[in-house]
Protein backbone atom coordinates (compact mmCIF):
# COMPACT_ATOMS: atom_id res chain seq x y z
CA UNK A 1 0.00 0.00 0.00
CA UNK A 2 1.48 3.35 -1.05
CA UNK A 3 1.31 6.16 1.47
CA UNK A 4 3.03 9.37 2.47
CA UNK A 5 4.41 9.43 5.98
CA UNK A 6 7.14 11.05 8.01
CA UNK A 7 9.76 8.75 9.52
CA UNK A 8 8.19 9.03 12.95
CA UNK A 9 4.74 8.27 11.56
CA UNK A 10 6.15 5.30 9.69
CA UNK A 11 7.68 3.81 12.84
CA UNK A 12 4.54 4.50 14.89
CA UNK A 13 2.53 2.80 12.15
CA UNK A 14 4.86 -0.20 12.21
CA UNK A 15 4.38 -0.33 15.99
CA UNK A 16 0.62 -0.32 15.48
CA UNK A 17 0.85 -3.17 13.00
CA UNK A 18 3.07 -5.16 15.36
CA UNK A 19 0.83 -4.42 18.36
CA UNK A 20 3.50 -4.90 21.07
CA UNK A 21 2.51 -5.80 24.63
CA UNK A 22 4.18 -2.84 26.34
CA UNK A 23 5.59 0.55 25.38
CA UNK A 24 7.70 2.56 27.81
CA UNK A 25 7.08 6.23 27.09
CA UNK A 26 8.98 9.42 27.79
CA UNK A 27 9.01 12.26 25.27
CA UNK A 28 12.12 13.89 23.81
CA UNK A 29 12.61 15.80 20.56
CA UNK A 30 12.68 14.59 17.81
CA UNK A 31 11.32 11.14 18.78
CA UNK A 32 8.31 12.46 20.74
CA UNK A 33 5.94 11.99 17.83
CA UNK A 34 6.36 8.22 17.86
CA UNK A 35 4.63 7.67 21.23
CA UNK A 36 2.34 10.60 20.42
CA UNK A 37 0.97 8.91 17.30
CA UNK A 38 0.96 5.60 19.10
CA UNK A 39 -1.08 7.07 21.99
CA UNK A 40 -3.86 7.75 19.48
CA UNK A 41 -3.85 4.11 18.39
CA UNK A 42 -4.09 3.10 22.03
CA UNK A 43 -6.90 5.60 22.70
CA UNK A 44 -8.78 4.41 19.61
CA UNK A 45 -8.50 0.80 20.70
CA UNK A 46 -6.56 -0.09 17.55
CA UNK A 47 -3.88 -1.83 19.65
CA UNK A 48 -3.98 -3.44 23.06
CA UNK A 49 -0.53 -2.30 24.13
CA UNK A 50 0.06 -1.26 27.74
CA UNK A 51 1.07 2.42 27.37
CA UNK A 52 3.30 3.14 30.37
CA UNK A 53 4.18 6.80 30.89
CA UNK A 54 7.11 7.36 33.22
CA UNK A 55 9.25 10.15 34.65
CA UNK A 56 12.47 9.64 32.68
CA UNK A 57 14.15 7.59 29.96
CA UNK A 58 15.99 5.62 32.63
CA UNK A 59 12.53 4.53 33.71
CA UNK A 60 11.09 3.97 30.25
CA UNK A 61 13.91 1.53 29.52
CA UNK A 62 13.44 -0.01 32.97
CA UNK A 63 9.76 -0.58 32.12
CA UNK A 64 10.78 -2.31 28.91
CA UNK A 65 13.34 -4.48 30.71
CA UNK A 66 10.88 -5.59 33.39
CA UNK A 67 8.11 -6.20 30.86
CA UNK A 68 10.32 -8.09 28.45
CA UNK A 69 11.70 -10.24 31.29
CA UNK A 70 8.10 -10.97 32.30
CA UNK A 71 7.50 -12.29 28.80
CA UNK A 72 5.99 -9.24 27.11
CA UNK A 73 7.19 -7.80 23.81
CA UNK A 74 8.32 -4.26 24.63
CA UNK A 75 9.17 -1.22 22.56
CA UNK A 76 10.48 2.26 23.22
CA UNK A 77 11.53 5.41 21.38
CA UNK A 78 14.02 8.08 22.30
CA UNK A 79 16.68 10.54 21.16
CA UNK A 80 19.85 12.27 22.29
CA UNK A 81 20.04 12.95 26.04
CA UNK A 82 17.13 10.55 26.52
CA UNK A 83 19.28 7.75 25.17
CA UNK A 84 22.15 9.00 27.32
CA UNK A 85 19.94 8.82 30.40
CA UNK A 86 19.14 5.21 29.45
CA UNK A 87 22.77 4.13 29.21
CA UNK A 88 22.85 2.17 32.44
CA UNK A 89 19.69 0.31 31.49
CA UNK A 90 20.78 -0.25 27.88
CA UNK A 91 23.60 -2.42 29.23
CA UNK A 92 21.19 -4.21 31.58
CA UNK A 93 18.78 -4.96 28.71
CA UNK A 94 21.59 -6.34 26.56
CA UNK A 95 23.32 -8.35 29.29
CA UNK A 96 20.00 -9.83 30.47
CA UNK A 97 19.56 -10.79 26.82
CA UNK A 98 16.16 -9.11 26.53
CA UNK A 99 15.21 -8.43 22.90
CA UNK A 100 13.60 -5.02 23.37
CA UNK A 101 13.16 -2.86 20.26
CA UNK A 102 14.04 0.82 20.51
CA UNK A 103 13.47 3.45 17.83
CA UNK A 104 16.35 5.90 18.19
CA UNK A 105 15.75 9.16 16.37
CA UNK A 106 19.29 10.47 16.11
CA UNK A 107 19.96 13.87 17.59
CA UNK A 108 23.10 15.64 18.82
CA UNK A 109 24.08 15.27 22.45
CA UNK A 110 24.38 18.26 24.76
CA UNK A 111 26.25 20.41 25.03
CA UNK A 112 25.87 23.00 23.82
CA UNK A 113 22.24 21.97 23.76
CA UNK A 114 21.02 21.30 20.22
CA UNK A 115 17.96 19.45 18.95
CA UNK A 116 19.16 18.68 15.43
CA UNK A 117 20.61 15.62 13.84
CA UNK A 118 23.92 13.90 14.20
CA UNK A 119 24.83 10.42 15.40
CA UNK A 120 26.52 11.19 18.69
CA UNK A 121 23.67 9.67 20.74
CA UNK A 122 23.58 6.18 19.26
CA UNK A 123 27.34 6.16 18.56
CA UNK A 124 27.84 6.76 22.27
CA UNK A 125 25.76 3.64 22.91
CA UNK A 126 27.56 1.55 20.30
CA UNK A 127 29.31 -0.64 22.86
CA UNK A 128 26.23 -1.27 25.01
CA UNK A 129 25.53 -4.64 23.39
CA UNK A 130 22.57 -3.51 21.28
CA UNK A 131 22.20 -4.39 17.63
CA UNK A 132 22.17 -1.10 15.70
CA UNK A 133 20.51 -0.71 12.30
CA UNK A 134 20.50 2.71 10.59
CA UNK A 135 17.96 3.96 8.06
CA UNK A 136 18.63 6.21 5.09
CA UNK A 137 14.99 7.22 4.63
CA UNK A 138 11.44 6.65 5.88
CA UNK A 139 11.04 3.40 3.99
CA UNK A 140 14.11 1.95 5.66
CA UNK A 141 13.03 3.28 9.06
CA UNK A 142 9.76 1.37 8.68
CA UNK A 143 11.36 -1.77 7.23
CA UNK A 144 14.16 -1.89 9.79
CA UNK A 145 11.70 -1.57 12.65
CA UNK A 146 9.64 -4.49 11.36
CA UNK A 147 12.75 -6.64 10.82
CA UNK A 148 14.10 -5.82 14.30
CA UNK A 149 11.73 -8.23 16.07
CA UNK A 150 12.58 -11.50 14.30
CA UNK A 151 16.26 -10.52 14.48
CA UNK A 152 16.50 -9.73 18.19
CA UNK A 153 14.03 -12.32 19.44
CA UNK A 154 15.63 -15.32 17.74
CA UNK A 155 16.93 -17.77 20.41
CA UNK A 156 20.43 -17.69 18.86
CA UNK A 157 20.53 -13.90 19.24
CA UNK A 158 18.34 -12.69 22.13
CA UNK A 159 19.68 -9.14 21.95
CA UNK A 160 17.92 -5.77 22.00
CA UNK A 161 17.74 -3.88 18.71
CA UNK A 162 18.08 -0.15 18.17
CA UNK A 163 16.73 1.05 14.84
CA UNK A 164 18.09 4.50 14.09
CA UNK A 165 16.95 7.26 11.77
CA UNK A 166 18.13 10.83 11.35
CA UNK A 167 16.28 13.35 13.49
CA UNK A 168 14.11 15.80 11.52
CA UNK A 169 15.77 14.92 8.19
CA UNK A 170 14.08 11.52 8.26
CA UNK A 171 11.83 11.66 11.30
CA UNK A 172 9.89 14.77 10.25
CA UNK A 173 10.13 14.75 6.45
CA UNK A 174 7.15 13.28 4.67
CA UNK A 175 8.10 10.89 1.88
CA UNK A 176 6.37 8.34 -0.28
CA UNK A 177 6.43 5.00 1.46
CA UNK A 178 5.23 1.51 0.74
CA UNK A 179 3.51 -0.03 3.74
CA UNK A 180 2.92 -3.72 4.19
CA UNK A 181 -0.49 -5.11 5.07
CA UNK A 182 -0.98 -5.49 8.80
CA UNK A 183 -1.70 -9.21 8.45
CA UNK A 184 1.56 -9.66 6.60
CA UNK A 185 3.52 -7.74 9.26
CA UNK A 186 1.92 -9.68 12.11
CA UNK A 187 2.67 -12.98 10.43
CA UNK A 188 6.23 -11.86 9.72
CA UNK A 189 7.06 -10.84 13.30
CA UNK A 190 4.94 -13.62 14.85
CA UNK A 191 4.21 -13.97 18.54
CA UNK A 192 6.88 -13.34 21.15
CA UNK A 193 7.38 -16.77 22.70
CA UNK A 194 10.51 -16.84 24.87
CA UNK A 195 11.42 -20.18 26.37
CA UNK A 196 11.71 -18.72 29.87
CA UNK A 197 10.04 -15.65 31.33
CA UNK A 198 9.13 -14.36 34.78
CA UNK A 199 5.40 -15.03 34.48
CA UNK A 200 5.88 -18.67 33.49
CA UNK A 201 4.49 -20.20 36.66
CA UNK A 202 5.69 -23.74 35.99
CA UNK A 203 9.28 -22.64 36.21
CA UNK A 204 10.56 -19.89 38.51
CA UNK A 205 13.17 -17.65 36.91
CA UNK A 206 15.78 -15.23 38.23
CA UNK A 207 16.85 -12.51 35.77
CA UNK A 208 19.99 -10.43 36.16
CA UNK A 209 21.54 -12.07 39.23
CA UNK A 210 24.81 -10.82 40.70
CA UNK A 211 27.80 -12.23 38.89
CA UNK A 212 31.03 -12.89 40.75
CA UNK A 213 34.27 -12.69 38.79
CA UNK A 214 34.31 -16.43 38.21
CA UNK A 215 31.16 -16.13 36.07
CA UNK A 216 31.03 -12.57 34.63
CA UNK A 217 33.53 -13.13 31.85
CA UNK A 218 31.80 -16.29 30.64
CA UNK A 219 28.50 -14.42 30.42
CA UNK A 220 30.20 -11.64 28.44
CA UNK A 221 31.59 -14.22 26.03
CA UNK A 222 28.06 -15.61 25.60
CA UNK A 223 26.87 -12.09 24.82
CA UNK A 224 29.69 -11.53 22.33
CA UNK A 225 28.88 -14.81 20.62
CA UNK A 226 25.23 -13.74 20.33
CA UNK A 227 26.34 -10.52 18.62
CA UNK A 228 28.46 -12.55 16.19
CA UNK A 229 25.47 -14.84 15.51
CA UNK A 230 23.28 -11.80 14.86
CA UNK A 231 25.05 -11.14 11.57
CA UNK A 232 23.73 -14.29 9.92
CA UNK A 233 20.31 -13.81 11.48
CA UNK A 234 20.03 -10.25 10.12
CA UNK A 235 20.71 -11.53 6.61
CA UNK A 236 18.27 -14.43 7.07
CA UNK A 237 15.53 -12.03 8.19
CA UNK A 238 16.37 -9.65 5.33
CA UNK A 239 15.91 -12.50 2.89
CA UNK A 240 12.51 -13.37 4.37
CA UNK A 241 11.60 -9.69 4.34
CA UNK A 242 12.44 -9.43 0.65
CA UNK A 243 9.84 -12.12 -0.02
CA UNK A 244 7.04 -10.07 1.53
CA UNK A 245 8.21 -6.61 0.44
CA UNK A 246 10.37 -6.97 -2.65
CA UNK A 247 12.96 -4.83 -0.89
CA UNK A 248 16.43 -6.27 -0.40
CA UNK A 249 18.68 -5.30 2.48
CA UNK A 250 22.19 -6.29 3.44
CA UNK A 251 24.49 -5.39 6.30
CA UNK A 252 25.70 -2.59 4.06
CA UNK A 253 24.58 -1.15 0.76
CA UNK A 254 27.04 -0.69 -2.06
CA UNK A 255 26.13 2.03 -4.51
CA UNK A 256 27.97 2.00 -7.86
CA UNK A 257 30.92 0.26 -6.20
CA UNK A 258 31.49 -2.39 -8.90
CA UNK A 259 34.49 -0.56 -10.46
CA UNK A 260 34.78 2.38 -8.04
CA UNK A 261 38.19 3.98 -7.52
CA UNK A 262 37.01 6.53 -4.99
CA UNK A 263 34.48 5.74 -2.29
CA UNK A 264 32.73 7.15 0.71
CA UNK A 265 31.71 5.17 3.76
CA UNK A 266 28.78 6.66 5.63
CA UNK A 267 25.59 6.06 7.57
CA UNK A 268 22.05 7.40 7.41
CA UNK A 269 20.23 10.03 5.38
CA UNK A 270 23.40 11.62 3.96
CA UNK A 271 23.71 8.52 1.78
CA UNK A 272 20.89 9.88 -0.38
CA UNK A 273 22.77 13.12 -0.99
CA UNK A 274 26.01 11.22 -1.58
CA UNK A 275 24.31 8.98 -4.15
CA UNK A 276 23.24 12.10 -6.08
CA UNK A 277 26.86 13.31 -6.00
CA UNK A 278 28.05 9.91 -7.23
CA UNK A 279 25.59 9.96 -10.13
CA UNK A 280 26.79 13.41 -11.12
CA UNK A 281 30.44 12.40 -10.97
CA UNK A 282 29.81 9.14 -12.79
CA UNK A 283 28.17 11.11 -15.60
CA UNK A 284 31.45 13.01 -15.82
CA UNK A 285 33.50 9.80 -15.96
CA UNK A 286 34.68 9.74 -12.35
CA UNK A 287 34.58 6.24 -10.86
CA UNK A 288 32.89 7.17 -7.62
CA UNK A 289 30.85 4.99 -5.31
CA UNK A 290 29.54 4.80 -1.79
CA UNK A 291 29.20 2.16 0.88
CA UNK A 292 26.35 2.85 3.23
CA UNK A 293 26.64 0.96 6.48
CA UNK A 294 23.19 -0.18 7.52
CA UNK A 295 24.16 -2.43 10.40
CA UNK A 296 26.78 -0.88 12.66
CA UNK A 297 26.44 -3.48 15.43
CA UNK A 298 27.38 -6.18 14.69
CA UNK A 299 29.97 -4.42 12.52
CA UNK A 300 30.25 -5.87 9.00
CA UNK A 301 34.07 -5.66 8.92
CA UNK A 302 34.76 -8.40 6.38
CA UNK A 303 31.98 -7.25 4.07
CA UNK A 304 33.25 -3.68 4.23
CA UNK A 305 36.82 -4.71 3.47
CA UNK A 306 35.56 -6.69 0.49
CA UNK A 307 33.53 -3.74 -0.78
CA UNK A 308 36.48 -1.34 -0.53
CA UNK A 309 39.18 -3.77 -1.70
CA UNK A 310 39.51 -2.42 -5.24
CA UNK A 311 39.41 1.29 -4.45
CA UNK A 312 42.27 3.79 -4.54
CA UNK A 313 41.12 6.26 -1.90
CA UNK A 314 38.28 6.23 0.62
CA UNK A 315 36.76 8.93 2.84
CA UNK A 316 34.97 7.72 5.95
CA UNK A 317 32.27 10.21 6.85
CA UNK A 318 31.43 10.34 10.54
CA UNK A 319 28.37 12.26 11.73
CA UNK A 320 29.64 12.27 15.30
CA UNK A 321 32.80 13.44 16.98
CA UNK A 322 34.34 10.67 19.03
CA UNK A 323 36.83 13.05 20.67
CA UNK A 324 39.46 10.37 20.31
CA UNK A 325 41.71 12.95 18.58
CA UNK A 326 42.23 10.13 16.10
CA UNK A 327 38.98 10.17 14.11
CA UNK A 328 35.34 9.21 14.54
CA UNK A 329 33.84 5.81 15.39
CA UNK A 330 33.07 4.70 11.81
CA UNK A 331 36.62 5.60 10.82
CA UNK A 332 38.10 3.55 13.65
CA UNK A 333 36.03 0.52 12.66
CA UNK A 334 36.68 0.94 8.94
CA UNK A 335 40.43 1.40 9.30
CA UNK A 336 40.53 -1.70 11.49
CA UNK A 337 38.45 -3.67 8.97
CA UNK A 338 40.81 -2.76 6.11
CA UNK A 339 43.98 -3.78 7.93
CA UNK A 340 43.82 -7.36 6.68
CA UNK A 341 43.65 -6.36 3.01
CA UNK A 342 46.83 -7.08 1.03
CA UNK A 343 46.50 -3.78 -0.83
CA UNK A 344 44.79 -1.05 1.10
CA UNK A 345 43.30 2.17 -0.26
CA UNK A 346 44.30 5.55 1.13
CA UNK A 347 41.93 6.36 3.96
CA UNK A 348 40.81 9.67 5.41
CA UNK A 349 38.17 10.61 7.96
CA UNK A 350 35.84 13.58 7.70
CA UNK A 351 33.57 14.59 10.55
CA UNK A 352 30.53 16.44 9.19
CA UNK A 353 26.95 17.39 9.90
CA UNK A 354 27.24 17.91 13.65
CA UNK A 355 24.17 19.36 15.35
CA UNK A 356 22.22 19.52 12.09
CA UNK A 357 24.92 21.18 9.95
CA UNK A 358 23.73 20.64 6.40
CA UNK A 359 25.68 18.68 3.80
CA UNK A 360 25.08 19.21 0.08
CA UNK A 361 25.85 17.40 -3.14
CA UNK A 362 28.68 19.89 -3.82
CA UNK A 363 30.23 19.07 -0.45
CA UNK A 364 30.42 15.41 -1.38
CA UNK A 365 31.86 16.35 -4.78
CA UNK A 366 34.63 18.22 -2.96
CA UNK A 367 35.36 15.13 -0.90
CA UNK A 368 35.64 13.02 -4.06
CA UNK A 369 37.92 15.69 -5.56
CA UNK A 370 40.15 15.41 -2.52
CA UNK A 371 40.21 11.63 -2.86
CA UNK A 372 41.30 11.99 -6.49
CA UNK A 373 44.12 14.33 -5.38
CA UNK A 374 45.18 11.90 -2.67
CA UNK A 375 45.28 9.01 -5.15
CA UNK A 376 47.43 11.11 -7.48
CA UNK A 377 49.85 12.60 -4.93
CA UNK A 378 49.77 10.10 -2.07
CA UNK A 379 49.41 13.02 0.31
CA UNK A 380 46.71 12.13 2.86
CA UNK A 381 47.30 14.77 5.52
CA UNK A 382 45.22 15.67 7.41
CA UNK A 383 43.91 12.14 7.81
CA UNK A 384 41.27 13.30 10.25
CA UNK A 385 39.47 16.59 9.66
CA UNK A 386 36.12 18.34 9.85
CA UNK A 387 33.90 19.60 7.07
CA UNK A 388 31.20 22.25 6.96
CA UNK A 389 32.43 24.38 9.86
CA UNK A 390 33.36 28.04 9.30
CA UNK A 391 37.12 28.20 9.21
CA UNK A 392 39.94 30.54 8.22
CA UNK A 393 41.64 27.59 6.57
CA UNK A 394 40.28 25.31 3.90
CA UNK A 395 41.44 21.75 3.32
CA UNK A 396 41.85 21.13 -0.40
Amino acid at each position, binding site marked *: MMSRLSGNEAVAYAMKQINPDVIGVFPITPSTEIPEYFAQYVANGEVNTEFVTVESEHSSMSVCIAAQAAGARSVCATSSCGLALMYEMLYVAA*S*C*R*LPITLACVNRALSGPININNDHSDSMGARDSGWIQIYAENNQEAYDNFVMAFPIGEHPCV*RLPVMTCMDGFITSHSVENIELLDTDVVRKFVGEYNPE*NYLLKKE*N*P*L*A*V*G*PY*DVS*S*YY*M*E*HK*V*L*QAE*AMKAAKARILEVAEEFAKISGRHYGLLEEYRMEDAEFALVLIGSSAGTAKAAVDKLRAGGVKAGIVKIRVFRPFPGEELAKALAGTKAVAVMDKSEGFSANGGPIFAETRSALYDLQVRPYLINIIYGLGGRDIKIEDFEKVFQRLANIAMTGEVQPVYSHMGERSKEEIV
Partner: protein
Amino acid sequence: MIYAKDINEHTPWQDLTPGGEIYEAGTARAFNTGAWRTNTPVFHEEECKHCMLCVPFCPDSAIPVKDGKRLDFDYMHCKGCGICENICPFPAITMVTGGVAK
Protein backbone atom coordinates in the same frame (compact mmCIF):
# COMPACT_ATOMS: atom_id res chain seq x y z
CA MET B 1 17.43 -26.84 30.75
CA ILE B 2 20.62 -25.99 32.64
CA TYR B 3 20.30 -26.55 36.41
CA ALA B 4 22.17 -24.48 38.98
CA LYS B 5 23.54 -27.62 40.64
CA ASP B 6 25.35 -28.48 37.41
CA ILE B 7 27.09 -25.10 37.22
CA ASN B 8 30.23 -24.29 39.11
CA GLU B 9 33.36 -22.16 38.78
CA HIS B 10 34.86 -24.63 36.32
CA THR B 11 31.91 -24.64 33.91
CA PRO B 12 32.87 -23.41 30.42
CA TRP B 13 30.89 -20.52 28.95
CA GLN B 14 29.16 -22.80 26.47
CA ASP B 15 27.37 -24.54 29.35
CA LEU B 16 26.22 -21.41 31.19
CA THR B 17 22.82 -19.76 30.75
CA PRO B 18 22.34 -16.59 28.69
CA GLY B 19 22.48 -13.52 30.92
CA GLY B 20 23.16 -15.76 33.92
CA GLU B 21 19.46 -16.61 34.15
CA ILE B 22 18.56 -19.11 36.86
CA TYR B 23 15.63 -21.41 36.14
CA GLU B 24 14.93 -22.54 39.70
CA ALA B 25 14.12 -20.92 43.04
CA GLY B 26 16.25 -20.90 46.20
CA THR B 27 19.57 -21.62 44.53
CA ALA B 28 21.47 -19.24 46.85
CA ARG B 29 21.37 -22.14 49.32
CA ALA B 30 23.91 -23.98 47.21
CA PHE B 31 26.25 -21.01 46.92
CA ASN B 32 29.12 -20.65 49.39
CA THR B 33 29.10 -17.08 50.71
CA GLY B 34 30.73 -18.07 53.99
CA ALA B 35 34.13 -17.47 52.45
CA TRP B 36 33.74 -13.70 53.11
CA ARG B 37 33.96 -14.35 56.87
CA THR B 38 36.85 -12.78 58.83
CA ASN B 39 35.47 -13.62 62.30
CA THR B 40 33.68 -16.82 63.17
CA PRO B 41 31.04 -17.67 65.77
CA VAL B 42 31.57 -20.87 67.76
CA PHE B 43 28.54 -22.72 69.17
CA HIS B 44 28.83 -24.23 72.67
CA GLU B 45 25.95 -26.67 72.73
CA GLU B 46 26.27 -27.46 76.47
CA GLU B 47 25.55 -23.78 77.34
CA CYS B 48 22.63 -23.36 74.91
CA LYS B 49 19.05 -23.24 76.33
CA HIS B 50 17.53 -23.18 72.83
CA CYS B 51 15.75 -19.91 73.57
CA MET B 52 15.94 -19.22 69.81
CA LEU B 53 16.84 -15.52 70.17
CA CYS B 54 19.83 -15.89 67.88
CA VAL B 55 17.83 -17.42 65.03
CA PRO B 56 15.68 -14.42 64.00
CA PHE B 57 18.57 -12.02 64.69
CA CYS B 58 20.83 -13.75 62.19
CA PRO B 59 20.77 -11.43 59.13
CA ASP B 60 21.41 -14.45 56.91
CA SER B 61 19.89 -17.86 57.56
CA ALA B 62 23.00 -19.38 59.00
CA ILE B 63 21.48 -20.90 62.17
CA PRO B 64 19.57 -24.04 61.28
CA VAL B 65 16.77 -25.23 63.59
CA LYS B 66 15.47 -28.78 63.81
CA ASP B 67 12.73 -30.12 66.13
CA GLY B 68 12.76 -26.98 68.30
CA LYS B 69 16.54 -27.06 68.77
CA ARG B 70 19.15 -24.93 67.07
CA LEU B 71 21.97 -26.80 65.43
CA ASP B 72 25.55 -25.76 64.77
CA PHE B 73 26.20 -22.82 62.44
CA ASP B 74 25.81 -23.13 58.70
CA TYR B 75 29.30 -21.89 57.90
CA MET B 76 28.60 -21.97 54.19
CA HIS B 77 26.40 -18.91 54.66
CA CYS B 78 27.56 -17.32 57.95
CA LYS B 79 29.30 -13.96 57.34
CA GLY B 80 30.68 -13.73 60.88
CA CYS B 81 28.90 -10.48 61.80
CA GLY B 82 28.72 -11.43 65.52
CA ILE B 83 25.12 -10.33 66.10
CA CYS B 84 24.28 -13.79 67.44
CA GLU B 85 27.03 -13.59 70.05
CA ASN B 86 25.77 -10.14 71.08
CA ILE B 87 22.16 -11.24 71.44
CA CYS B 88 22.81 -14.60 73.16
CA PRO B 89 21.87 -14.26 76.90
CA PHE B 90 24.13 -17.23 77.72
CA PRO B 91 27.76 -17.98 77.04
CA ALA B 92 26.65 -20.30 74.24
CA ILE B 93 28.25 -18.34 71.37
CA THR B 94 31.76 -16.91 71.26
CA MET B 95 33.50 -15.20 68.38
CA VAL B 96 36.99 -16.21 67.30
CA THR B 97 39.28 -14.30 64.97
CA GLY B 98 39.64 -15.65 61.46
CA GLY B 99 37.39 -17.41 59.00
CA VAL B 100 37.61 -20.83 60.59
CA ALA B 101 36.10 -22.09 63.87
CA LYS B 102 38.91 -23.46 66.04
